[in-house]
């Protein structure tokens, strides 16, 4: 077939060199493509050559550095930033899926308003009109403006919100979302405050540890920074001189962290703290560690009855002894507190007990052990600290009492995150005007009068104070890597514009646009590892390097006991009587959808869950025996009822869970939030009531009992594995352990 070979073809082929291997064979012409040659290509754009931009991942609060591959002004791939101190070039599944946040087909194409809240009829309006409405409302509201944002909000926007609220005399912006709430960020910080005198997230470097006791911490799945802990774990497994650490995972349901653990101890839910205490107790009694450490143990723990704890936690006494031995005799031992701990009604004590173990281990501040996330390198750099559960309830009270004229919701999705007992929705009903900045209409934006879609993190400016940050303070820079896909505007710019019209706020927010404000912030950071001087250079390098971090990491300071508290531990009180509600409820954030914000991304929805290989669905994990008792099999829909609520979901028989426990993953059950998330699965937060822990700083979700009733209905479980093969298959026997 004689087809004349034009120069363009030649260039195309040249450019497609990479693809030739997979596109060999006959390649017919592609007449319907409109080729667009550049007369004078803009900088960084050569045909077929990718440009990489450094920015920050905002799929979770940690703030990993990312590099985005851009071609023709389109984002093709996200990879970790190798220079970034936190993730060092690596990314988790959620980070990889960031592109589908950017290119989500269900994003709002422009500002819309809802004349009737929850009606799902959105009238588009011009940006000016939208901003004007917001301006009028804010101007009228004066100080009665509440801002509800989440922990992944950019530091600079949070800063501006704060300045704005302060200027108009409103309450300071509330940071509350399920991710931080569920993982007990606030409680962790509070306990650090109490023990070590500084409110900061504890970080645990594991790469040189001999023994790790993980108290229900799924640090490899949905911990505080799965990526960093993944790296640490890699080091932990292959240490110098062929040393290989020993990981013990204590949790009622096998998470992926337990799957890779050397030893899994399925203890009774809610008793993690007790067990930690018991270990301290044993070390103190048996004087397993050196005298001073034993003494420290003695001082930290009041007399605990190991026997009763063994009974309560369903962990045999000799097992406890063995663990205590292993822990105390290790030269490098670390104890990790998990989300399940902070979810109990007595989370603070439980946490303290675990930290006590770390102190006794004496590894605090060492190459492997407990350190505290360093403070912000400059007071100009803010990070949205998660609010206490009680603060959040307080705001909701104000809203219900009608003390809030205008509610600005940015990033947060309380309507989905919170159990309905918390009463967000009825509270919102009493707020005259609600404005949301959600790019996709989520459950909360549904109840907003005005939606001014913000840009996604790949289109917008910002920075994030890396937290938890392991060895050094770091500010991760965020810059637009593509021009906005839809007609969206930066909330920060909107806020600055609006503020200009409000006298009180005008001088508090004098910047023409957010970039000016950001530059100012970066200037105050001063030269970092990238060096340079002068605002232009600093700013440029901040963007180019993907952030700011010190030239040389400071010595990690060992957290020392501020006071010498005695940790009182009592066994948790469960809601729901044992006879009526025979099973423990154990919730966990899905490794892919995390707290539900991943549900809008097909890559995360469609990828099989590592442990069950289920995708697209919510499932209820039951131990085979339990399933047999109830006479249910895979896919049988059961009704799970707690004293607080109920849900119906298909059963997934799961061999690695306590027979008296039922596990359900978070993440599904959206009623909005785009086509991929909507009307899919169930949201187990329906089962959790409004009860907080003793200190009121975190939601007590792990001390619940439930009952199970087969409904008789059945759905096909979307399994990727063939269960017959894997459970009855022959490979297990000869699998290389």
């Amino acid at each position, binding site marked *: 077939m004689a087809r004349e070979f034009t120069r363009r073809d030649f260039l195309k082929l040249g450019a497609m060199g990479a693809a030739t291997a997979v596109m060999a064979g006959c390649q017919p012409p592609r007449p319907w493509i409109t080729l667009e040659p550049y007369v004078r290509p803009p900088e960084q754009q050569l045909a077929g050559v990718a440009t990489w931009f450094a920015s920050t991942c905002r799929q979770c609060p940690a703030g990993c550095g990312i590099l985005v591959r851009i071609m023709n002004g389109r984002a093709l791939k996200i990879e970790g930033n190798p220079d970034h101190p936190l993730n060092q070039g690596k990314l988790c599944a959620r980070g990889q899926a960031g592109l589908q946040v950017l290119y989500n087909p269900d994003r709002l194409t422009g500002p819309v308003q809802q004349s009737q809240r929850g009606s799902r009829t959105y009238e588009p309006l011009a940006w000016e009109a939208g901003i004007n409405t917001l301006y009028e409302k804010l101007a009228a509201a004066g100080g009665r403006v509440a801002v509800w944002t989440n922990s992944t909000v950019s530091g600079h926007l949070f800063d501006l919100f704060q300045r704005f609220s302060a200027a108009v005399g409103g309450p300071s912006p509330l940071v509350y979302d399920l991710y931080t709430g569920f993982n007990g960020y606030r409680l962790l910080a509070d306990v650090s405050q109490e023990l070590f005198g500084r409110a900061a997230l504890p970080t645990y470097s594991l790469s040189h540890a001999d023994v790790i006791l993980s108290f229900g911490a799924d640090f490899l799945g949905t911990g505080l920074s799965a990526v960093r802990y993944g790296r640490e774990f890699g080091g932990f497994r292959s240490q110098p001189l062929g040393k290989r650490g020993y990981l013990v995972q204590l949790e009622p349901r096998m998470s992926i962290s337990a799957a890779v653990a050397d030893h899994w101890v399925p203890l009774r839910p809610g008793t993690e703290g007790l067990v930690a205490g018991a270990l301290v107790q044993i070390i103190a009694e048996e004087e397993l560690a050196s005298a001073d450490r034993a003494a420290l143990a003695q001082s930290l723990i009041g007399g605990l009855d190991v026997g009763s704890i063994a009974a309560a936690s369903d962990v045999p006494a000799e097992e406890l002894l063995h663990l205590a031995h292993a822990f105390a005799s290790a030269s490098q031992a670390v104890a990790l507190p998990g989300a399940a701990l902070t979810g109990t009604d007595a989370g603070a004590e439980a946490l303290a007990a675990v930290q006590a173990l770390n102190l006794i281990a004496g590894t605090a501040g060492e190459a492997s052990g407990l350190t505290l996330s360093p403070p912000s390198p400059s007071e100009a750099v803010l990070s949205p600290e998660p609010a206490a559960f009680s603060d959040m309830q307080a705001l909701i009270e104000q809203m219900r009492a009608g003390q809030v004229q205008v509610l600005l919701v940015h990033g947060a999705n309380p309507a989905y995150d919170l159990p309905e007992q918390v009463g967000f929705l009825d509270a919102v009903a009493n707020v005259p005007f609600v404005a949301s900045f959600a790019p996709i209409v989520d459950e909360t934006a549904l109840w907003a009068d005005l939606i001014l879609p913000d840009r996604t993190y790949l289109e917008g400016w910002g920075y994030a104070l890396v937290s938890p940050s392991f060895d050094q303070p770091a500010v991760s820079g965020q810059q637009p890597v593509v021009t906005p896909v839809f007609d969206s505007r930066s909330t920060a710019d909107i806020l600055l514009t609006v503020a200009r019209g409000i006298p009180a706020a005008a001088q508090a927010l004098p910047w023409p646009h957010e970039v000016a404000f950001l530059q100012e912030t970066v200037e105050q950071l001063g030269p970092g590892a990238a060096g340079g001087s002068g605002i232009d250079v600093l700013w440029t390098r901040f963007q180019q390097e993907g952030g700011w971090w010190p030239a040389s990491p400071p010595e990690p300071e060992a957290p020392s006991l501020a006071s010498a508290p005695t940790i009182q531990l009592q066994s948790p009180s469960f809601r729901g009587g044992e006879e009526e509600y025979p099973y423990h409820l154990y919730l966990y954030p899905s490794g892919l959808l995390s707290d539900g914000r991943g549900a809008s991304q097909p890559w995360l929805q469609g990828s099989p869950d590592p442990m069950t290989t289920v995708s697209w669905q919510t499932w209820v994990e039951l131990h085979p025996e339990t399933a047999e008792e109830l006479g249910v099999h895979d896919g049988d829909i059961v009704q799970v009822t707690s004293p607080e609520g109920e849900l119906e979901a298909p059963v997934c028989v799961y061999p690695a869970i306590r027979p008296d426990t039922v596990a359900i993953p978070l993440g599904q059950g959206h009623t909005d939030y785009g086509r991929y998330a909507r009307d899919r699965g169930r949201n187990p937060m329906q089962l959790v009531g409004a009860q907080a822990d003793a200190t009121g700083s975190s939601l007590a979700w792990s001390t619940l009992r439930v009952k199970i009733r087969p409904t008789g209905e059945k759905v096909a479980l979307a399994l990727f*594995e063939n269960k*017959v*093969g894997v459970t*009855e*298959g*022959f*490979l297990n026997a000869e699998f290389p352990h």
Partner: protein
Amino acid sequence: MSVNEVEHPVWRRPLLEGEDLAEQAEHLKRRHLLLDPKFPWEMNDDALKPMYRTSPSFWVIVVALSGLVMMGAITWFRQIYWGLGITGLNRPIYWGLFLVNTVYFIGIGHAGTFISAALRVLKIEWRRPISRAAETITLFGLTAAGLSILMHLGRVWKFYWLLPYPNQRQLWPNFHSPLMWDFMAILTYLTGSTLFIYLGLLPDLAMARDHTVGWRYRLYSILSLGWRGTEKEWAYHKTALDIFSYVIIPVMFSVHTIVSWDFAMSIQPGWNSTIFGPYFIVGALFSGVAAVIIVMAIIRKSMRLEYFLRHEHFDGMAKFLLILSFTWAYFYFSDYIVPWYNGEPVMKVVFDVLRRGWAAPLWYLMLFCNLLLPVATLWSRRVRSNTAALVMVCIYIQIGMYLERYFIVPVFLGYNELPFSWGTYIPRAGVLLTIASFAMIILLYMLFSRVVPLIPVWEILEGQIFQGLKRIGRALLPARSEPH
């Protein structure tokens, strides 16, 4: 009328003295077609009449079948447009009903060639009236098999990439691939058997030409290529038939061997077995002969061919069927016991599934159909002589053999060495296309039977000429005289 009164000297039998011999002669005539001569013109009518005698029910059936075929065509179009997703295939079960059908159809095709070629070479005389009816099954069986392969392709519009010809892709097909061998073998076999059946048809087409008018006359004039029956024509005709017979037998064997190799060459547990070749051939003949018996019975009834198709034919075929049943069992057993004895892990599971798993009922049904039933019934002459019973047995054999292929293709495929990716197969659009394929075969056969004489008149006449009665002692015995 009795033989003596035939005023045609050609057809006069040796004179008989004495009644008893006459009775014997009568008896033998009733038994053997070749001893029961008719005038050629009568026989011509017997062979040609059924082609005009089409009852309304015939057309009703034709319409119904065409409907099914149309449905199949639509389904296939949808499959091409949407993709194979509308079938029940999945991972790891990449081959499903289409391949089952292919194997099955090629299988039933085998008997035709076997009867007309092998029995001809072996000079088995009773084959004469049934050879063409059998070959026709081959013809349409192969057609359906070819179509099934096309239905199976993911991008069927590129099927011609399998043909070895110089092309703009600069690429020749890969002769490492068993599918290429398969392609070549089926091509050869289809071409060969088509020419074979046409060759045998020539004299009868001439006969039809001489006794028809109108469009049929014109059609037969073209098809018969101006056959006159001169010595030269007959001589060449005979040699050609002999060559075809001798050549097409090995081709027939190669075809089903290669079909079996499509499976045996892979490393799929349960497939890579050295015995698959002969095992498949026997299976093919088994289902094929059964199919021929069914067809014989049907055309005998519907086209009133009682004169041509007699008990001796059903009897011979049935005996053959019995032997094949045993042979099949032998091969199946050897194919079963070896992996069983090795204790190959995957096959352990597969056998469990067959013995007491979800497939157990079907598996026992298969064993019943393919072994128990034939062996239990076909030994008895009463069954063999009872057409209805015989047809029932044959239908069961069809079911059994189809199941056997079904187990081999989508069931075995579900079990491999990585249990994580095992699978189960629930056929969907494939079912419609399977029904349509069967409908198509029947439809084509029915239409064919209205255009082409299914009875090879010249062969029977030839047989009757050279078959005679010889008196030895007190008995009259059929004796065959063959000109060399």
